[in-house]
């Protein structure tokens, strides 16, 4: 073992006794414009604080050590869920997972997003954790992101110099790496209205029934024709099987225009399996994950088909 490498490690391992959270300047702006101005001035050293369920842990472990923290919770419009009729739904970034799980506005239109939010962590985490935080943390295992990808969600990003809207699947570069610029704030998540006979499902595989990061997560959004037998739209997205939350356009394409029969469903599941690029880590081997992509995608497609067609088991 290389001595220098070991000694470089020594500093890291003071973690044994804990880490000091490095000092930082704290701001709690009362308005969006104030927050944007702060973000502009603080530069890349600043961190945006939503629920804190990711950031505070990262700061405790010294994985992140911002010199300034900007708390977004006093920005009232960030907590809203707006039904804008044909223009779709606008979800504020600080809407908590608990609210996503319980809010009728979300449950009725996008129930699989509620399911995904409900599957996160624990009750206490869901009371603080937010949809914006989940997105901007950029974990490939994040549960809300695959449903949002299926929904065709768009992210509103604002800085002092520009405002832009990008598709959510274009937001991720790698594990915990997003395309959020250092002075940008996520100000809203736009979800377009869905065509009739459209439902989604999110299946999460974990070894326990709570406090789990997905071994594999599968989100499916399916649209059927009037006779509820043929697929007219299908979007599939996966968690924990790639460096980023993974859209599976080829798998979705297998279904479009096809009758929802076993062999089509199995084919779509196989393609999703092929599209996935999981690794082996503490939570599971690559081989197991690949197998589970197939199993869960198949189950998800069958279940969501039943949901739309109102057919019971």
């Amino acid at each position, binding site marked *: 073992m290389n001595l220098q490498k070991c000694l470089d490690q020594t500093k890291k391992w003071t*973690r044994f006794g804990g880490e000091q959270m490095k000092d930082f300047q704290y701001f709690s702006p009362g308005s969006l414009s104030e927050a944007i101005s702060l973000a502009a001035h603080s530069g890349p050293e600043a961190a945006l604080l939503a629920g804190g369920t990711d950031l505070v842990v990262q700061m405790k472990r010294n994985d992140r050590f911002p010199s300034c923290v900007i708390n977004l919770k006093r920005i009232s419009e960030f907590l809203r869920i707006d039904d804008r009729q044909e223009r779709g739904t606008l979800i504020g970034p600080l809407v908590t997972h608990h609210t996503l799980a319980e809010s009728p506005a979300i449950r009725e239109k996008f129930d699989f997003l509620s399911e995904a939010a409900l599957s996160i962590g624990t009750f206490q985490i869901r009371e603080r954790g937010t949809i914006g935080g989940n997105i901007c943390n950029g974990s490939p295992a994040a549960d809300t992101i695959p449903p949002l990808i299926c929904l065709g969600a768009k992210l509103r990003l604002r800085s002092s110099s520009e405002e832009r809207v990008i598709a959510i699947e274009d937001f991720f570069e790698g594990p915990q790496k997003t395309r959020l610029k250092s002075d940008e704030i996520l100000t809203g998540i736009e979800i377009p209205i869905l065509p009739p006979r459209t439902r989604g499902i999110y299946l999460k595989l974990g070894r326990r029934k709570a406090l789990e990061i997905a071994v594999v997560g599968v989100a499916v959004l399916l649209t059927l024709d009037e006779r509820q037998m043929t697929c007219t739209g299908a979007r599939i997205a996966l968690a924990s099987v790639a460096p980023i939350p993974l859209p599976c356009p080829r798998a979705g394409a297998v279904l479009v225009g096809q009758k929802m029969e076993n062999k089509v469903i199995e084919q779509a599941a196989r393609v999703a399996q092929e599209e996935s690029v999981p690794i082996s880590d503490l939570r599971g081997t690559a081989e197991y994950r690949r197998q589970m992509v197939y199993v869960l995608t198949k189950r998800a497609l069958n279940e969501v088909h039943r949901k739309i067609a109102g057919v019971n088991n």
Partner: protein
Amino acid sequence: MEETYQVIGKRVPRLDALSKAMGDLRYVSDIQLPGILIGKVLRSPLPHAKILQIDISRAIRIAGVKAVVTAADTPRRKFCMNPAWANNMLLQDEKVRYVGDQVAAVAAIDEDTALEALSLIKVDYEPLPAVFDPEEAMKPGAPRIHQEESNIALHGSRNFGDVEQGFREANSICEGTYYSPAIAHCCMEPRGCVADYDRSGKLTVWSTTQTPHPLREELSEVLGLPQSKISVFQAPVGGAFGARMGMDPIDGIAAVLSMKSQRPVKVINTREEEFLSSRIRYPMKIWIRSGAKKNGRLVAREIKVITDNGAYNHEGQYIMGNAGSKLAQLYAVPNIRYEGLLVYTNNVYGGAFRGYGNPQITYAMETQLDQIAESLNMDPVEIRLINANQPGSMTVSGCRITSCGLTACIEMVSQNARWREKKMGKKEIGPSLRRGIGLACMIHGASGVKFFWGKDCNFSSAIIKINTDGSVDLLTGSAELGQGSNTTLAMIAAEELGVSLSDVNVINGDTDTTPACGGAWGTRQTFTAGNAVRQAASEVKKQLFGVVSRLLEAPLQDLEARDNKIYVRGTPGKYVTVKEAAAESWRNRGNPIIGRGGNDDPWSVQPDPKTGYGNVSSAYAFAAQAAEVEVDVETGLVNVINFWCAHDVGKAINPIGAECQIEGGVISMGVGYALMENLILQGGQVQNTNFADYKIPTMLDTCQVNTYLIETIDEHGPFGAKGVGEPAMIPSAAAVASAIYDAVGIWVTEVPITPEKVLKAIKEKQRAKEQ
């Protein structure tokens, strides 16, 4: 004859429940003392290295740092549960031997300052080759971890009967290799200690220890202080399960920091340290072979076990020995051989953990017994009834089985679980779901054993004082860990004295005032401490009777104690209250009523050092547990639905307490051990150091648990009682494995039974079928 008791057998709330519910009870980390400092330990980042130099000069200069200590600040004494095996030190000076090994420590005015100082201690290491697999470590040429030539710390074997002959007589023989990994205790309260060395030379320690009196001895030896200068208080403990048995290096380090800084010092593990560098369940690789006759009777059993001792000696020899001893004890098999290798590695080392080697061996024994049953076309319940230990029997290793309700346990469980119906019933309950039911049994010592700190004894003592208002002080050296022992002991005292439970005040775990006891381990306290308490109460009762006999001019044998009074039997109007009797004795005769009792587990012996023969416990606990599971054959996920647990507890002193232990043992530990717990070590470094990645069951992972307390009224237990603490989780994993086999026809020989392993085994079975 059914005894009617006034206190024993009633479902009573714990004595300390109120203060816990209020949040009042002060655990070690809640203790505040004037001038208290925060202590932190510098731990080795390397699994094996020479320590060339430790430079503390920058650390000590930080404002607010009051002490920085290394081995040079200690008497450099080695310590171990058994002093003859001592090779660990509070702070290492020559070598570090595992990732997390203690090298230095700091005490400062607050946590941030302590952490800053820690980061400024510069240690020059010379890395050495390390070894992490015991089988590699055994080979000649493997890196030497200690002074000895070989990394084999112990190679022992025991033979009873004639195993070769036994196997020759067997009609069915099964063999297999099983593996049990490193498991973390996951007590909700991390390990910790507050030490206060005052300038008169007196050291006071509040520790999360399970063994306050032995801790005092160990501190005395490792610090070079006489015992009279050390007071140990067992602080209320947030779960123990063996984690806090014997001195933890933190106890000694806090003391050293306090001695150096001359201020009280608090050292508390972070959760990460709990996973990274704290004692674990000893990993074991067990090769086992069992043989039975056509009629199902086991005739021979043998094992070879390789135990990962980790970097230092602690309890490995005892635990490996205990595991082996179960071969002879469970089902009284006539021909037994067990061979054990205890091997040093550069992994974190093991310690006591609920079951003490028994969960590991029971998993192997019981799942193999199911395989034997199948080969003989027998049902798992049937084969166990045939082999069940009987009361008044003797094992080939010399264990004398007194009370034994194993048959009753098996029958109770199979009846209530509707075993036959479910065994014959449909397994397929959905397109990918299969249901199954399984069973496992266990035996465990219920009084502790006589190995105690190499002193060949297992004792407990108690003192009872009656106060002038008739209330009772019970001083016991035993340890309350949250398992309810204080309540149980108070109930025993109250029953014997005929007083109300609410009149009993328990003082425990305080070495200044309580008489010595071995502490809480080995499921011993109900039996051993309970007997000591009963004897003390009986002694006190004699004194009270003496006073009352004179007052009422009644013969001693006509008196009885009941309802806080001492009556002349048959004449309800003729009595003296306990208060009056105590006051009379104190004021008018100058004799405060004080009684003492002791129990040294007298019906057991230290086993013969050469042969291992001997009755190692005064009483044995038995249990049968049945589990019902659902297996998803596409994902491999196993869902435990139901457990039926019948435990022979001798006499349930506090039935609700026994139920709590069983439910907790099954769900919070047994199911975890079976399905999800695995402390993953790579290159000696623990990889899963938090509760997200090291998985214990949450409330959503619970199943139904039906408990049945079988009372066999042991001849030696206090009011017939035996313990239940460890038995609660010993057979659970084997029951789950057995149920999985019933559901999908596969065995997993390595816990935890993860979905991946299940799927792999199902696929292999399908492949084998197709061939």
